């Protein structure tokens, strides 16, 4: 049960933004702009970064929901999502995505963990400034979301079917602030 009195049965961050809509609105706005707004990275690639950081932060709700969204967006290449989360076979990923995930993993640890070599490797693999900017800010933002969701012990569903439905909705409609 969550540490504070949030709407019952509402999962994860949805329950928290309903508890405090004044802060919830900019958080949804941030998710929508970062993950669906203009970017050289596709929504699928951006959801993958989100799922990867959430996985490394061990946040089940964010990891499962964003992994589900990424699977929908990758379509026939959906297996890449589980390969990245399990950190095993990354051979189907582009060199650029591998380098950007490396940067995201550093940001997950701390800002200062990102080294010039990490940036250099991404550039050599074809990343431009905006790819790097968006990767860092997505990874930083999920360092926020993961802590918010778990720091208040919000409700985390365990049924994979629930996440599949969330992923479908997130990939089709994006992030629309939930009405009570």
């Amino acid at each position, binding site marked *: 049960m969550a*540490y*504070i*009195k949030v709407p019952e049965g509402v999962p994860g961050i949805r329950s*928290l933004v309903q*508890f*405090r809509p*004044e*802060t919830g609105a*900019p*958080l949804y*706005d*941030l998710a929508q*702009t*970062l993950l669906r*707004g*203009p970017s050289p990275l596709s929504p699928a690639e951006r959801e993958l970064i989100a799922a990867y950081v959430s996985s490394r*932060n*061990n*946040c089940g709700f964010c990891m499962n929901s964003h992994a589900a969204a990424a699977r929908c967006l990758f379509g026939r290449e959906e297996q890449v999502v589980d390969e990245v989360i399990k950190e095993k076979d990354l051979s189907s990923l582009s060199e650029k995505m591998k380098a950007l995930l490396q*940067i995201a993993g*550093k*940001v997950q640890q*701390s*800002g*200062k963990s*990102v080294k*010039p070599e990490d*940036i250099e490797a991404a550039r050599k693999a074809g990343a431009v*400034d*905006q790819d*790097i*900017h968006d990767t*860092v*800010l997505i*990874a*930083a*933002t999920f*360092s*926020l*979301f*993961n*802590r*918010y*969701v*778990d*720091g*208040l*012990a919000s409700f985390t569903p365990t049924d994979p079917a629930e996440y599949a439905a969330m992923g479908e909705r997130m990939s089709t409609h994006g992030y629309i602030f939930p009405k009570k």
Partner: protein
Amino acid sequence: MAYIDLKNDLPGIRGPMIYRPETGRILNELAEVLLHDEDNTLSRAERELIGTYVSSENDCFFCQNVHGAMAQHYFNSDMDFIDGIKKDFRSAPISPKLKALLAIAGSVQQGGKKVTPDQIDTARKLGATDREIHDTVLIAAAFCMFNRYVDGLNTWAPQDRQIYVDRAPMRAAEGYSQEGLKK
């Protein structure tokens, strides 16, 4: 020097905010509601202190000095008072409730799952409300984002700490809505 060409020479988070105003605007809006909005039972001083403490734990020079100067301004204190809290808030001359909230913020800085039911109980017994606990967790989480954004892009920061102190009264008067978006 920043890892990417921000096309401006503003310090800290203001650089990437101008570089990417679509997200910069939202980050300011979040900072405004969390730290400056008057509709809050936590004082501005207390909220800025939570941001300062988390930034200090994350070793983010720019954020801990900007927000440390804000806290110093609102507490009407000196720099030593803020530095003492960053170093050891448990023995600092602040309320037991604020200490309990800083303990929660310190756990959030390490990871969401580090917050314990005992920490929440302690804060509650000292008078913290649900919304105060919520805001403490979200402020701490938000600074884990701000700090990573600032340092992950290797932005530059003025090293003279007095610069931050001198800017604080203006920021306190204006709030965060336009922070960084004005050149």
